[in-house]
């Protein structure tokens, strides 16, 4: 059947390709040692280091919000990209710890960044959130819905972690990382290999629902709970395969990489993935978890920024990114570093 109307819609046109133009991160000021964590859980500093690789992490101040940290990280990313806030075409915030059903964190963040009336929204994909956002941003730039997209991964996990739960208290932390994605004349973000597996909803979840508190004010405040062994096995088995698929999809060999920047879930997961991927020894691997703990959606951009700042990885080099976590959600892609 043909159209009844003679009028035709103007075609949408975007940039031929997209790239990460700038990166920035924010780490809260307060350093929390394993010794401090052990004041509230039956554990030892050695046990924490052996299980997770973590030596210290950062906790946000009580009055420091997800939006505060997101603005701090995004401001640096915008400056590093060399654009001005009024050029921002969209703001995407990936987080699971903006504990307000509405409005979104992104709406506040965009406003505070000076992004005017740019579209802004949050996405919920847990530790895969940043890589999900990067995929959306690339599609938006190439699809013509925005020239420059700010993608922020930010978490204040201390708001949903029970500090007396010995399986999670030492693991999770706070922070923010951000990038600006903009137009490119050459391919600089590879195809995203992503997905989710809802058959393991219980692997990482909350101990209860917030509305339980409405019915029973004395109900336990909901906190994150995790089946560590299930997650570990899934991450090592399945995520190394997803990372390899992202390499294959981009047409890149492991030996072409300048960096491997996986979600900082646990140092032992990182090391097991490196082994499973058979990454050559000389390729720098993000091990930021040692100093930052697991910051969920923020971990990949925080680690990327740290490695670039330290001169561990070159501008223009290729990095393999992978995020994976509750959902179970996952996303991986190869990117050219800004």
């Amino acid at each position, binding site marked *: 059947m043909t159209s009844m109307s003679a009028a035709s819609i103007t075609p949408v046109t975007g940039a031929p390709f997209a790239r990460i133009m700038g990166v920035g991160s924010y780490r809260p000021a307060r350093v929390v040692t394993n010794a401090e964590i052990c004041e509230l859980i039956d554990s030892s500093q050695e046990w924490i280091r*052996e*299980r997770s690789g973590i030596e210290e992490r950062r906790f946000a101040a009580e009055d420091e919000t997800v939006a505060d940290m997101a603005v701090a990280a995004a401001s640096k990313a915008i400056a590093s990209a060399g654009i001005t806030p009024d050029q921002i075409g969209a703001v995407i915030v990936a987080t699971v710890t903006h504990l307000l059903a509405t409005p979104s964190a992104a709406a506040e963040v965009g406003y505070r960044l000076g992004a005017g009336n740019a579209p802004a929204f949050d996405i919920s994909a847990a530790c895969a959130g940043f890589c999900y956002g990067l995929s959306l941003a690339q599609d938006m730039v190439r699809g013509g819905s925005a020239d420059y997209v700010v993608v922020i991964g930010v978490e204040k996990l201390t708001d949903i972690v029970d500090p007396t739960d010995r399986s999670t208290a030492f693991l999770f932390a706070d922070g923010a990382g951000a990038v600006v994605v903009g137009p490119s004349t050459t391919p600089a973000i590879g195809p995203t290999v992503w997905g989710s597996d809802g058959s393991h909803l219980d692997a990482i979840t909350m101990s209860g629902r917030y509305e339980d508190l409405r019915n029973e004010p004395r109900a336990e405040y909901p906190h994150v709970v995790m*089946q*560590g*062994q*299930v997650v*570990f*096995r899934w991450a*090592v*088995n399945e995520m190394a395969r997803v990372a390899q698929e992202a390499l294959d999809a981009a047409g890149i060999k492991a030996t072409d990489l300048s960096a491997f920047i996986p979600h900082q879930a*646990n140092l*032992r997961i990182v090391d*097991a993935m490196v082994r499973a991927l058979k990454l050559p020894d000389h390729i720098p691997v993000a091990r930021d978890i040692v100093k930052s703990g697991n910051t969920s959606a923020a971990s990949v951009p925080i680690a990327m920024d740290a490695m670039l700042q330290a001169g561990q990885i070159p501008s223009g080099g290729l990095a393999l990114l992978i995020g994976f976590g509750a959902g179970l959600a996952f996303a991986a892609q190869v990117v050219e570093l800004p």
Partner: protein
Amino acid sequence: MAQTEQEILAGLADIVNEITGVAVADIATEKSFTDDLDIDSLSMVEVVMAAEEKFGVEIPDEEVKNLVTVGDAVSYIAKASA
């Protein structure tokens, strides 16, 4: 052809040694993974995954907690691969 329990024990000892550094000579059927060999839960997952690959069996998550001793694991693998 199914492997004997002796062969499975030897193969499992190699895996445990490679992942945790525990001496092969210390790995005997009556030893508890946690209490005697000091293998933590994440290392146990790595041992299980390596065993699955080596012996061509499946050891589901809910089964792992029942494998208290090395002997438990050997019997499970023997049964699963029979």
